[in-house]
């Protein structure tokens, strides 16, 4: 993990989508006046007819996605995560998930990525909102390699899916070699016996840094990257609870119904151990993303302190 080389996952998303579209003419993109923010410029240039920009109309966008799928196409429906999910939630439930339409919902710039644009633009509720919907896989890639692999998987697989495509710069975290993304499987990035940090998306590299900080304090923390938030990799979570005895989850989202809640349920049902759920807990104040992540304790330091706390160790 080279920490100072960071990437906007939207770039990997956009490149991979163009690559897939070259090979498969069923792939189309749909967006809500978000060609730029969804990084669809090169797609538009190469496949002008296969970009359906519906304008500022998210319900229409998702319904159109379902219709395109019905016509035999493979639509990637892209919009700022909060507008896509908040504005079109019933379309996501009825037209996509309940109808089992082959629609790839791509929530761009999620979490606190919009920084000082404020809470109306932050997408911190999306994981809770979507995990509540049956039959809708929720995927959160943590770096460019996972982003590419997840999109390839989504394009190949028939059925609905939500992909959370990050904007906040992240370092590469996927181990070289092995597959960057396997649907339904969490990736253990670091071994440890004292506690497990279960992280997703932007929090994964911070979890790795937290583990390094913890090591200085003599704590061996395991780090698990959950890129399939729903359905969750129960085995890996059970192993974490059983083998390390303490769990901290970290997500750039409210933990009420997202990663934190998902992990909590497995831990409680199989091996109750002390746990803490890190995430955003309120509408954010004004500030850029980095500042807001600090504000909510979503930093290497914040994660490490929380791990010490759950272990009952002094964290001052």
């Amino acid at each position: 993990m080279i920490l100072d080389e960071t990437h906007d996952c939207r770039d990997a998303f956009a490149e991979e989508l163009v690559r897939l579209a070259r090979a498969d003419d069923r792939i189309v993109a749909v967006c809500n006046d978000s060609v730029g923010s969804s990084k669809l410029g090169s797609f538009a240039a190469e496949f002008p007819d296969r970009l359906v920009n519906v304008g500022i109309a998210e319900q229409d966008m998702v319904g159109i996605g379902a219709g395109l799928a019905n016509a035999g196409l493979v639509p990637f429906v892209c919009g700022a995560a909060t507008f896509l999910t908040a504005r079109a939630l019933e379309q996501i439930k009825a037209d996509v998930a309940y109808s089992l339409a082959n629609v790839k919902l791509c929530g761009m710039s999620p979490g606190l990525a919009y920084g000082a644009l404020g809470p109306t633009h932050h997408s911190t509720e999306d994981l809770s909102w979507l995990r509540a919907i049956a039959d809708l896989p929720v995927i959160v890639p943590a770096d460019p390699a996972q982003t590419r692999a997840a999109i390839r998987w989504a394009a190949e697989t028939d059925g609905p899916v939500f992909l959370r495509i990050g904007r906040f710069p992240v370092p590469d975290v996927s181990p070289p070699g092995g597959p960057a993304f396997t649907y339904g499987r969490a990736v253990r990035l670091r071994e440890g016996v004292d506690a497990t940090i279960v992280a997703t998306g932007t929090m994964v590299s911070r979890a790795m840094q937290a583990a390094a900080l913890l090591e200085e304090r003599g704590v061996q923390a395991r780090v698990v990257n959950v890129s399939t938030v729903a359905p969750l990799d129960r085995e890996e979570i059970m192993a974490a609870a059983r083998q390390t005895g303490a769990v901290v989850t970290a997500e750039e989202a409210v933990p009420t119904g997202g990663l934190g809640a998902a992990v909590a349920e497995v831990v409680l049902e199989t091996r109750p151990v002390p746990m803490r759920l890190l995430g955003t807990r309120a509408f954010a104040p004004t500030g850029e993303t980095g500042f807001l992540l600090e504000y909510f304790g979503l930093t290497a330091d914040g994660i490490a302190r929380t791990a010490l706390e759950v272990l009952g160790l002094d964290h001052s």
Partner: protein
Amino acid sequence: MTLTPTAHELLLPDHDAIAGWRRLRERLARADRDAAATALATLSGEIRRTVISTITAAGLGHAGGDLSVTDILTTLYGAVLRVDPADPGWPDRDRFVLSKGHCSVALYTTLATCGFFSADRLSTFAAPLSPLNGHPSRRAVPGVETSTGPLGHGLPVGVGIAVGLRLRGSAARTVVVLGDGELQEGSNWEAAMTAGHRGLASLTAVIDRNGLQQGARTSDTNDLEPLADKWRAFGWEAVEVDGHDHLALLDAVTAPHGSGRPRCVIARTVKGRGVSFMEDRVEWHHKVPDAEQARTALEELR
């Protein structure tokens, strides 16, 4: 992700019914206008009777809207839509979406008449584990292109289908039937704007303009007039017809799109059409007839 099945029975094509429907289509294609009108009226009568029996037996349903939309459905399935009940996924089929999904019984009955599944399955409507839920589910019912029930979903999906078919070079058409009260949902106007902007001439919206919604008249709730002007201002052709006149509907739906625009057919209908005590009465939106009322209704529909 392992999907939990929402229905525990697979609906399969009914080949006898398909053969009967094909004969009807051929007959109608050759018939003069009077004969065609009579055949479609006969079909509508049969469907209306089955609607009443099915709702009465299940103790659930939306009789008023089922009866107002029946003639629209029979016109479309009897003489317009190129579909194959034996192969519901045929890529070049015309697409039909019943956006006013609460009128599922009229739709199920029509689909069974075409042979998408056997008419005897209609008796399972709303019963435990039946594929025939109160609102049509794409998962369970062949011929249903998208699950509907929440209002204002059908037209955006229809627009997506029409855009997609055009992209794939298919000449198939897309027809969406909407309620009039349903047009209060803004999602429809998003879709209308997109369809107008894109000149989706293969798309037709038929409005079941019965003037009533769930709890009152549309004009007392949130008036829709001037309705044709709205569609025109959103870039559509708009025509108004008697929605119980099969031939008028047929002409309105099939006339060539000179303008290259999508077309809205405002079909003036009567909610509860054909049953005297239901006609234009708001309470029959979802009231269920008792045995006596059902008997009277079936007689009137003979």
